[in-house]
């Protein structure tokens, strides 16, 4: 098991939420605004302290770690993609991608890391933007750069909070395709999304309402050409749940 959440509670936002996530799984969390989706994601990533419950990443109990230990865990074993594409304004795209890798492994030369970053950038189709400032690229390009950054330390799990939320339709499709590729390569993804088209690409969907899991839909791995049927199925399921 990659991630195990057991009776996770946070004040009045989350109420004894429990679920598991298998290795290499792509899991989406959906729900109305204020249902606690992002809170669940950030707790699972060890960015906040729950008021109750436990979380494990493989054999490591995140809830039992100190802040510094959790930071180390995030740096080495987790990756993050935010809706707002947060990056350091003082660094160019390449340096932003390198940032967590430089911090995680001081022994590796910067040249080596740069080579790895450039390889990732090529893979995600943003090669040539290395020296650009973050204000000099499009939203889609910036989000792909964020994905590159999250993949630099080869995380076991990638947390994505509305990764396509701030993007136009074509950019969103590009970013989603990249996330699927990453998942196919073996990285588990826990994603929060409002977008049905994004969620239907995941292996499984959890529906959260008022801080409780109200439904679960297992879709299995996405097979090319089945997107439309999956989307219809998810839409029906969501309607049943009162979406």
């Amino acid at each position, binding site marked *: 098991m990659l991630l195990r959440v057991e009776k996770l509670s946070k004040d009045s936002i989350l109420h004894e939420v429990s679920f598991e996530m298998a290795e290499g799984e792509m899991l989406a969390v959906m729900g109305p605004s204020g249902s606690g989706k992002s809170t669940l994601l950030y707790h699972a990533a060890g960015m906040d302290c729950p008021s109750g419950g436990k979380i494990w990443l493989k054999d490591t109990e995140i809830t039992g770690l100190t802040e510094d230990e959790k930071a180390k865990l995030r740096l080495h074993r987790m990756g993050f993609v935010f809706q707002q594409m947060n990056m350091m304004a003082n*660094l160019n795209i390449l340096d932003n991608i390198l940032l967590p890798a430089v911090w*995680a492994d001081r022994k590796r030369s910067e040249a080596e890391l740069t080579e790895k970053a450039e390889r990732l950038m090529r893979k995600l189709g943003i090669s040539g933007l290395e020296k650009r400032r973050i204000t000099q690229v499009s939203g889609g390009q910036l989000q792909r750069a964020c994905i590159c950054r999250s993949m630099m330390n080869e995380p076991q799990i990638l947390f994505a909070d509305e990764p396509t939320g701030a993007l136009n339709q074509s950019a969103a499709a590009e970013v989603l395709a990249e996330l699927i590729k990453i998942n196919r390569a073996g990285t588990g993804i826990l994603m929060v999304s409002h977008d049905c088209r994004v969620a239907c690409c995941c292996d499984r969907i959890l529906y959260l309402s008022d801080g409780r899991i109200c439904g679960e839909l297992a879709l299995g791995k996405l097979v090319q050409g089945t997107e439309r049927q999956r989307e219809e199925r998810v839409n029906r399921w969501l309607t049943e749940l009162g979406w």
Partner: protein
Amino acid sequence: MIKRLIRNDIKQNKLLSCAAVFFMAVSAMLLALAVLLFSGLAGAIGSLAEEAGMPDYMQMHAGVLDEAAVARFAEAHEEVREWQLCRFLNLDNSRITLGGRSLADSTQDNGLCVQGERFDYLLDEENNRPEVLPGEVYVPVCYRNRYDLMVGETMVLSDAGGGGDIELLIAGFLRDAQMNSMMASSKRFLVCETDYEAVKAYGSAHNSAREEYLIEFLLRDGADTNLFGAAYAAEGLPADGPAITGPLIYLMNALSDGTVIFVLFLFSIVILAISMLCIGFMLSLQMERDKREVGMLKALGIGNTGIRRIYFAKYILFSGCGGAVGLFAAFLLKAPLEKQMRELYGMAEGGWQTAVLGCLAVALAEEIILLSVRGALKKTEKLSALEALFSVQKRKTGRVQYLMIGLVTAACTVLVLVPQNLYSTLSDPGFVTYMGIGNAEIRMDVRQAEEIDDVTGRVARMLERDMQVETYAVLRTRSCPAVLADGRTVNLTVETGDCGIFPVSCLEGMLPKTQTEIALSAMNAKELGVAVGDPLRLVTGGKETEYTVCGIYSDITNGGKTAKAYQTDDDAPVIWSVLYVSLRESAKKEQWMRRYRQPGVDVTDIADYVRDTYGQTLGQLRLASCLAAVLSAFVTAVVTVLFMRLLVNKDRYEISLQKALGYTAGDLKRIYFTKGLFPVAAGVFAGLFTGNLSGERLCGTVMKIFGADGFAFVILWERILVLVPAVILGAAVPAVIAGIAEIGRIKACECCMGRE
């Protein structure tokens, strides 16, 4: 990576970075300068004292000397390492001409002496013992600037008619470990034995010189000079004159040259506080702006230590640059500031120790500032990644910026004001009341005459008949043994007469008005362990008489150990007498003073006395005042321009919106100019208020250490209300204009582009 982050951050925040380096540099410079000068002065005074073999206890004595009794006393006391008798030929100032300039106005006891036999050497400018040839004289180094003297000029001792009888060639200048300071009331000129005897014979013939003795003791390490002094006095040994201890000489030397260091030290503390405040505030602003980035770093797994390292590294770099600039500036400014000390004490060229000390002071200043940086960073550490990522940036009103401008302006006003007030107080004739001297217009000292009492009486009768004299007071000083509670006796120098005519400042109680009352100097009261109202027994006319301590006053003359009584036994010999005179407005002071000058009677304008005594200190203080004014103006300008710029940046959206609505850049600049000038004006006002109050207390505390208790500023309002605001506003107004210049560059369309 950190290097790139820092480089890019500096590029984007040039003004903030420059301001941070400026504050760090100024703080480091001032603290390093104060420490370097202090260590230099302390070291120089110490090494001069050592090289010169400065005595630990010295008793001046005018009159017949029982040398054998002193020798017996020295032999009986184990703590005495060495002792010697030095002769001092006290000359009549009106008969001395130095390089063509008369010393008639001098308030010092000027006299000749020969080189000490075993210790208390007078040293030349290389700190060597000069060999004085017949016909030559070595002049105190402090007179070189005072009388604009050069080697090769002459010192002439003339007769009453002004004829040049004895001429000595100035062969060099000397450092006197004991009497270097102008606060020491005597100055020694070094001549050879032959010339000394010749002048002595000449002086006796013309009644223009009187031989006195300096009974000097070198004590073993750890010996208590006060206890030794008490033992000396208890033996009834020759003591017709003030007794001075080693620590007191150190104190006098430190006071004349330490004032500038004190001002610098005070200045460095205030600037350090301003730097901490400004840098802390600038960092808080940056952290508020970068909160989301910090949150992102935390989310990525870069812990508090890493984030601290990223931000702290920049300030380490700033402190390195600021420290280096500050250290360099400190060494540049050190030379002119220590010029006087170098001349008086012969400061040795600083080697690696000076460099290390300077570096340590700089490191201390930087460390203190970095503490405030750490404090500001700690606030961010408490934030969780989520709080930092999703917190809404607070819309601040800019009150803090205005407050900072006001606070810094107030602090800078205080820094300009305090040295100014200290200068005007020390240069005011009224300051003499803290020195144990009456606040009169003219002081007449009768010290040289054979029959001091007779001469005093004669002068007093002349004053009585003189229509130009408004008031006068005659005070005779006698030496009276005081009996302590344990039966021991201590010699007190008691000034008798009506002290109420030209009163000195009393800390407690009042001056004596009846024959059984006595007032003591603060130092004497402390040493004798008596307070106002306590009885004190004096041995007068061979019998003990009980007096009541009616008051305690501040005094830094005659070693700070004096007493004032209305009357004591008139049979005791008068050591010296002083006549204080106040003239009518119609009187011509200079003419009047010339008329009264006669052998044995020094007539001094009190203003000259203050200038003579505090001349060195005032010179240094003037320099420190100028430095304070320049630096305060600079700091005010930097802080004002910085915070006005930050304010305009913060209000960028509103300014753009107002422009879009039709306001012109001129309209907006006028509004911001008024807004910026208001805290400056308020700061100046607050600074003038607090500077006059707290500055007085602070200086009073320091002056108390030196014996001048109950200190109050003499404030020259017309100067303070014009000069100080002019300095601060002169710096702040252009700074406000420069700070709001950005308003002109803000475009009306920015608000529509969402650049809030």
